[in-house]
């Protein structure tokens, strides 16, 4: 045993001391950092650097077959010398991964695109500020003054329903009508941060704490089925007829599926929960030039046009939503926006989660 102990200590010691070298090579703060470089030859530098790197890895929470793949294909068509790779995850899984990478001192991700991660990612010291000439075109209220993130797309959230199970005359028209006992056991939502928690934050934001609590208590009596997956999956369950209604769909998802013939329709409820998703740049991306080149593309009119044709809502003020999506843009259908900023989403999360645990988690 003594021998074993010595051997172990020896090996373990080697492992631990080599850990000292892990304090990751943080980005050089020199003026040459492609993240913040503003010189006239910026474009030239990015292209040269990206050509050498030849690769970019994007983590995004956009649904792969709807939006993420078209954007990556568009990028590759424009810059054929950079091979884009992607990983699609929900925001909490994305956070788990980027935190693990940052702690390991081995970043794999070059570009992080997500919803609601702006605050925790910065708190964990994972990302760095960046500058892209494209950001100038965006409205200031949807931008981060310090440049730690830039807006990529808007999302309008609301209910959706199965058109075979809910007859035209029965469709609920308001938050109150969701409380009708006939829907008991027939409603689902995603039990994730971007699902139920965000729904609760939204309700709190427009009703005020007291009314929101009373409303949520009544809603809890409807036995809402929690699906531990992305909001998109909940829409799939509604399409499959497992549930009649869902509360927290990204409203463009049912439109996209309905066009393929699925029995599902979006149901925006006034005021419409609105969030912005954003793009972030890690401190030590393995391909810093390609990363900036991709961010430029994603924020450009070209990249945003891919979102438009994918039926997502471009954040670029110069790129309108596709005509089909007009029926869910709140301003166009006479509904109000219930905008939850990244900071608010994060600040309200603990209480919304506590409410969820108390009222809805059995």
């Amino acid at each position, binding site marked *: 045993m003594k021998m074993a102990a010595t*051997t172990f200590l020896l090996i373990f010691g080697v492992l631990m001391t080599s850990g*000292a070298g892990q304090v990751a090579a943080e980005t050089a703060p020199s003026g040459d950092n492609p993240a913040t470089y503003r010189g006239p030859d910026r474009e030239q530098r990015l292209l040269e650097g990206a050509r050498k790197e030849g690769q970019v890895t994007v983590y995004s929470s956009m649904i792969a*077959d709807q939006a993420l793949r078209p954007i990556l294909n568009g990028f590759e068509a424009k810059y054929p010398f950079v091979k884009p790779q992607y990983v699609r995850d929900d925001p909490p899984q994305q956070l788990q991964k980027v935190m693990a990478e*940052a702690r*390991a001192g081995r970043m794999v991700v070059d570009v992080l695109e997500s919803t609601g991660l702006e605050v925790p990612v910065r*708190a964990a010291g994972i990302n760095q500020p960046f500058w892209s000439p494209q950001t100038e075109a965006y409205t200031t209220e949807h931008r981060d003054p310090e440049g730690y993130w830039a807006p990529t797309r808007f999302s309008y959230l609301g209910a959706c329903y199965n058109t075979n199970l809910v007859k035209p005359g029965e469709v609920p028209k308001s938050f109150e009508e969701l409380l009708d006992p006939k829907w008991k056991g027939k409603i689902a939502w995603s039990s994730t941060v971007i699902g139920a928690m965000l729904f609760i934050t939204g309700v709190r934001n427009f009703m005020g704490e007291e009314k929101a609590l009373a409303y949520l208590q009544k809603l809890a009596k409807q036995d809402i089925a929690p699906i531990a997956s*992305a909001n998109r999956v909940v*829409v799939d369950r509604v*399409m499959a007829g497992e549930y009649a209604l869902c509360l927290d769909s990204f409203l463009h998802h049912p439109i996209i599926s309905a066009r393929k013939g699925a029995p599902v329709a979006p149901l925006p409820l006034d005021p419409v929960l609105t969030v912005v998703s954003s793009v972030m740049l890690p401190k030590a991306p393995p391909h810093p030039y390609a990363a900036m080149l991709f961010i430029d593309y994603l924020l450009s009119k070209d990249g945003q046009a891919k979102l438009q044709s994918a039926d997502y809502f471009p954040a670029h003020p110069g790129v309108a939503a596709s005509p089909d999506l007009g029926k869910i843009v709140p301003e166009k259908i006479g509904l109000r926006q219930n905008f939850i900023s990244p900071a608010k989403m994060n600040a309200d999360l603990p209480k919304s989660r506590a409410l969820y645990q108390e009222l809805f988690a059995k």
Partner: protein
Amino acid sequence: MMGHAGRLDGAIIPAERGGKAYPATRRVSLAVVLLIALLCAAVIPPFVFLAYSSLHQLDPTGAFGALTFEHFSTIFRSRAFGSTLVNSVAYALGSALLALAIGAAQAWLAERTDAFLRQLLYVASIVSLGIPYVLYIVAWLLFLGKAGPLNALLLQLFGGTEPYINVYSLSGMIFIEGMLWSPLAFLLLSPVFRNSDASFEEAASICGAGLLSTLRHVTLRMARPALLALGLLVFIKASESFEVPALVGLPGSTIVLTSTIYQRLTLDMPPDIGSASAFGVLLLVIMAILLQIYNRVAAQTHRYQTVTGKGYRPRVIRLGRWRYAAGALIVAIPFIVVVVPLATILWAALLPFYEPLSVAAISKLGFGNFVQVLNSQSFRDSIANSLILGASAATVVTALAAIAGWCVARRVAGSRLLDLLATLPLVFPAIVLGLAFLELFVHGGTQIYGSLFSLVIVSVVAYIPYGLRYAQLGVIQIHPELEEAAAIAGAGHVGAFFRIALPLLVPAMISCWLFVFLLAVRAVSLMLLVVGPDSQVVAVALFDFWNNGQIGELAALGCVWTAIVTVFTVAFLIVARRYQLPIG
């Protein structure tokens, strides 16, 4: 050649068990020291990192802070912990009983009766071994779901508006996990029924006992130790399983220990690594106790050996008019275990978006998902990664196990420690081992996090215990006198091993290789936390597809992958059968 004589009729003769301490030197050879050092380096650090994370605070940047017992005390104080434990036990027990019942029924029908089409049971079990867990579970979720064909049928038959079956429940979990293990239960139980001495049953029927009475009082009673050991094995496997708890349990809020760990890591922001690690440590302790019990029970099984040197022939029971009923059962079981899930998956793979079975949907069928999957570089990469991972892990494990297994079976000096180290990873449920390695890679200063190489390390550690068992069984069948002869002729330990033992071990090692390969390519929870974008593997890709709502692509990739793995499974069984090796 007593070893071979013993093996042919299926019994391990106790005297052969440990082998002789040949040649009885106490000198520790260099090979053993190196092997012990290697295993220490691979097996001990995950334990240390898991324990360390469970006892330290973590700041928002993910660095370790002060020592704390809070992660544990929070668990014990929480109201949910009790129900989590109850759920875990109910789930594991239910799954074990169901798998045993289905497996034993099949084994009895196939081995002891003259029912029709018995071979069908083997074919179905073999095919089912090649289906990835996630695919199998998803198939059942679609089939039994609220909008699935079974609920639709029940609503047609009995009326009403509410679906009759809720698959996202504890009973749904038990059903699917039980189904998942039933083919293995069958394959492991069939030799037990095959080899039990028929003279007891004949005596019973001479004394006037009927078919059922004989079955109950004699056949099943003789198989009891084997049933108990297998039941315990499935209980342990279900306790540490992750796929069913995550895919079936979480949506229905039926939380068990393994799914709690995943929840702490992915539903909380930021991930609560301390609490997840504390749960991991608790689960390790539980597994250690269960495995101890299992070893005791498994050691007892040979007490009921009925195959002796005397004339022995298993009796085939004539079922008479029951023959047709049994035949129907033999068609029905594989139908439920294999055909239904595969058909459901194929249906999903051919549809642009999933919808229930209907005439209208037939017009939408097409190969779009297959085209998407086969044209995508990332899917082709994940298939290649899975194959590389499986092959590398299997090769390393087989090589290590051959040497370690020989040392352990021949009791060379230091072999006790070797045995302990190589068996230790068994106490790790896959998700906990994944978490422990995540912590190791993240803090260990190695730059291998997220690489395919890191997945190979994780798999080798996870599967070395299985490899060792194969190798030991292989060595036990080789009588030491062959090596003694070599020693007399002047060969040393190393020479005797390489010139004599190794060539004789080849069949056992081939089947060990294939077994580890199959385990490694099927693993989901082991890889889930350590996989990176450059090292995506099929099993994890399938899991992600389900969570991201890409059911069509999941089904298409799953079909392609099942076909590939089935080829390996068939190869495995051909080898295993030819050399009469135990399966599992």
